[in-house]
């Protein structure tokens, strides 16, 4: 029942083991992998940065809301920070429940809410040497000047 940040590589085997529960019949996991492209541009690596105390506080609120809303037995979420390469694991979310519908719904809600609310930022490094903070462009954007 937790949300944490990690500066170290995530260990999905240990994380999934922490969900084990004889009452659970279903386990759904979501993994966010660093992929080699974004919106048509070749990506070489990326950096995740977090406002750690508030990220962990907001993540814990999201976990608590999910537990209140769906009948699940265990929830674990971990988000990497630091420099990541293609194929690295950026986020791991696991949910166990008696029945599968709740595990799917809860897992999907968790990643949707984490992406929308937790103060974590992603900087992509492209093959042409340029970089971009995702979602921070100010041109071609209705909210921009």
């Amino acid at each position, binding site marked *: 029942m937790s949300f944490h940040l990690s500066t170290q590589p995530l260990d999905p085997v240990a994380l999934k083991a922490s969900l084990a529960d004889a009452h659970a019949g279903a386990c759904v996991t979501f993994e966010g992998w660093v992929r080699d492209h974004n919106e048509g541009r070749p990506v070489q690596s990326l950096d995740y940065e*977090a406002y750690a105390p508030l990220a962990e506080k907001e993540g814990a609120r999201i976990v608590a809301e999910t537990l209140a809303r769906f009948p699940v037995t265990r929830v674990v979420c971990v988000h990497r920070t630091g420099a990541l390469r293609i194929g690295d694991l950026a986020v791991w979310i696991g949910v166990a429940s008696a029945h599968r519908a709740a595990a799917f719904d809860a897992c999907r809600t968790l990643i949707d809410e*984490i992406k929308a609310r937790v103060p*974590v*930022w992603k900087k992509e490094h492209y093959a042409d040497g340029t970089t971009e*903070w995702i979602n921070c462009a100010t041109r071609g954007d209705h909210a921009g000047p």
Partner: protein
Amino acid sequence: MKTVHVHYFALLREQRGLSQETLATSAPDAAALYAELRARHGLTLPVERLRAAINGDFAPWPAPLKDNDEIVFIPPVAGG
């Protein structure tokens, strides 16, 4: 005048060129403070695209300031 502590992350950190500063301001709230800082340092993000956190938790705009508050301007998030 009050003294406030401002923390910068991500694009704002790079544009400001530092992670944290302590400064004196007459701004009554975080929105006014951001307007000052944006003009002074050429920050590109408009205030409408930011959230504010004061003393470790989200604070709705305009986010009134007291002496010694710690302020974080939160760019659009992109976890996951």
